[in-house]
């Protein structure tokens, strides 16, 4: 997990982190993990019901 905080400003200008660089509207390849999109309440309810933790990927499309 190489993080370059020192040059973050430069990276943002150059437009930032490759692995997160996809727009919400971008047609994604089929994920193998059943991600719930942008709905914390639903995820929380399901996690409580199934007694498992929530794994969150927080990303931005830039």
């Amino acid at each position, binding site marked *: *997990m*190489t*993080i*370059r*905080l*020192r*040059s*973050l400003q*430069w*990276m*943002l*200008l*150059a*437009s*930032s*982190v*490759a*692995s*997160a*660089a*996809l*727009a*919400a*509207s*971008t*047609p*994604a*390849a*089929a*994920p*193998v*993990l*059943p*991600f*719930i*999109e*942008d*709905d*914390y309440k639903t*995820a*929380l309810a*399901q*996690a*409580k019901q*199934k007694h*498992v*933790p*929530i*794994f*969150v*990927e*927080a*990303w*931005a*499309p*830039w």
Partner: protein
Amino acid sequence: MRAYVFTDKALAKHAGQFVWLSIDTEKAQNAAFSKKYPIRAWPSMYVIDPDKEKIALRWVGGATVAQLEKLFADGLKAVQPAGGDGPALARADRLYGDGLYQDAIAPYGEALKAMSPKDPQYNRALEALLFCYQAGHRDADCAALARERIASVKGTTSFASLAGSGLDCALGLPESDAGRAGQVAAFTKDVRASLDDPALRLAADDRSALYSSLFDEREDAKDEAGARKIADAWVDELSADAARAATPEQRTALDPDRLGAFTAAKRLEEAIPMLEQSAKDFPQDYNPPARLAHVYFLLKRYDEAMASSDRALSLVYGPRRIRVLSERAEIQQARGDRAAARKTLEEAVRFADGLPEGQRNEEQVVSLRRKLDAI
């Protein structure tokens, strides 16, 4: 992550271990989530304990499949009430999960003192402590930790992380620091060794970050030819990665790094066909036109920059709109249209001011106002 990692079938066996949640932090509907679970770097991954609604484990940055699988195991352990972690590591992980990076430093240090490098949580704890130092701009501590521990993670991806972060931190040391030159030289050697070791199997964006660090090191040494040589190698490697991409999505995911490499190599014109292709493949994605506007602006091709900015503005959402507006104002100023630049910045201030809590950034609002006053 989405283009390369979360599509890997090796992860399917973990599907039942968690409820999986993807949060686009730019969307207004996720502002409350961002307020509750603040994020410092993108992407970030968390394991949340649903009963406590607290982050049990946080991971900053991208990850390979192997790192993710390790993270899943550590995450499951972290939410167990009688987990096997020592109290210092558990305390450090809780503080780190809460985003209290400076408070997490002491317990991580304590935990690492008691851990063997063979401990399955050692590398994660070490990288988390390194991030805490970076987040606090503690370059000397960061470089010292990376130097002290780098040999203990030889042969793992953490070696590359410590080499890259160590070099960045060493470059951040004041010129007056007597140990600076030695630290920079040693980490440069480690970064080169990481890039030359195919067994490390680093992700493309991690390799790209290492090239970027090497480029900075040559610039710091005022060696223009050396910097250019590294930038060219950086471009070549990423271009080869892009050519090998299995899908347009995988190829486009490399755009930001490729743009960084093209910029460093002073070969900005070559970014244009790359971004035009991405714009064609993903017409609803604001990133390619926003990046094109930036490239055209740097090339002083202002009419094309404005056209790309128009397109980006019609697609962009969330806090990123501020950056697009801000760059637009710069283009307008460069064209000599101060009135238009002022109007655009006023719009940016209004938009930034109106963002919901969790997305609103007070420092950014102040900086925009300052920029506006200067026009």
